[in-house]
């Protein structure tokens, strides 16, 4: 989504606001720029940065949420990712893990591959999630609403989806400078 279309907030700005509210919760971050931006904004051992397996972030998080029912699990996802693994919205909705917060940064493009349009401009993903059985869903655009709703979701039983409309601006970020097997080991130790 282009800034002139009304979304002043970039994904990195939105992500930074959410990371300020998180401490030691496991966060599964989808492949592409989202993982690289999260790594740059605040690298934590509780972050699982994905580099491949597009569409699978909420499924990985679901595995963690089921196995660790006392930990609140957060997913940082994108619109292209959710569209690719849309079946997982149904799995989450049916299973109803209370400890599951799904954040979707919706910029309406495949940003990592050159801003080709997705179809999330006409498919409201939070409504799909609601229909699939998510308990709380919100769509936000402004930073104050984002912070308010995320704080609220941290207090509520899920599963919850927070869809945040962001523009297609991307931070100047490099790749995640950790070897994937080390990401696994570090994450496992951090959420033990």
């Amino acid at each position, binding site marked *: 989504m282009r800034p002139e279309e009304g979304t002043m907030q970039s994904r990195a700005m939105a992500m930074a606001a959410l990371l300020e509210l998180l401490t030691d919760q496991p966060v*599964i971050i989808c492949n592409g720029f989202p993982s690289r931006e999260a790594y740059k904004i605040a690298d934590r051992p509780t972050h*699982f940065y*994905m*580099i*491949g*397996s*597009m*569409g*699978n972030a909420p*499924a*990985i*998080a*679901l*595995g*963690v*949420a*089921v*196995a*660790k029912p006392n930990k609140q699990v957060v997913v940082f996802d994108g619109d292209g990712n959710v569209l690719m*693994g849309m*079946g*997982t919205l*149904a*799995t989450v909705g049916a*299973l109803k893990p209370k400890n599951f917060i799904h954040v979707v940064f919706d910029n309406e493009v495949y940003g990592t591959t050159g801003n080709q349009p997705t179809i999330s401009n006409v498919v409201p993903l939070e409504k799909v999630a609601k229909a699939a059985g998510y308990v709380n869903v919100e769509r936000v655009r402004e930073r104050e609403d984002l912070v308010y709703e995320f704080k609220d979701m941290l207090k509520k039983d899920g599963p919850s989806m927070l869809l945040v409309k962001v523009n297609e601006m991307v931070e100047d970020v490099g790749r995640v400078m950790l070897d*994937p*097997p080390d*990401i*696994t080991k570090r*994450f*496992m130790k951090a*959420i*033990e």
Partner: protein
Amino acid sequence: MRGFFGVYLEWGNGTMIESDVFVQALQDIGVDFYTGVPDSILGGIIAELMERRLYTPAVREDEAVAMAAGAYMSGKVPAVLMQNSGLGTSLNTLISLNMIYCQPCILIVSWRGYQGKDAPEHLVMGEVMPQFLDTMKIPHRTLSEKTAIEDLKWLAETFMKQRIPVALLITKGVVKGLHP
């Protein structure tokens, strides 16, 4: 509950393996998270897992593999049940999640199209599956009534040692299904 050696005694005679014995054997080797997508050959096993409230159903095999990865990172020993067509569906996840991140997973795969005897949609995958798994560097072994105890030991050992997905293939009639 029958233990590991109880299972051994029962399996020694080469008759069809009961689903509850098979599930118990998986539990005995430490598997404690089960997900997947059904197949008729796996029907009895999944029914038994549901009976024991151990099964978290998935809607696609790649999703099941990813859930298993999350469970593994949370300290579980995960197994994913699927028809071999699901290997095609989950290929990218097995490679760009499990292989790249060193995340092991036990795959219980029904071998549809085995020896060319099945519906047309199963014949190509049924024929190429062993080479397909070899190409993906996924260790695999086919369960038989006579070698079941070694098969499961191999499964547990390979899982622990290699830290990648490992597949146990099941042909029709080896483990009792829902409709024998």
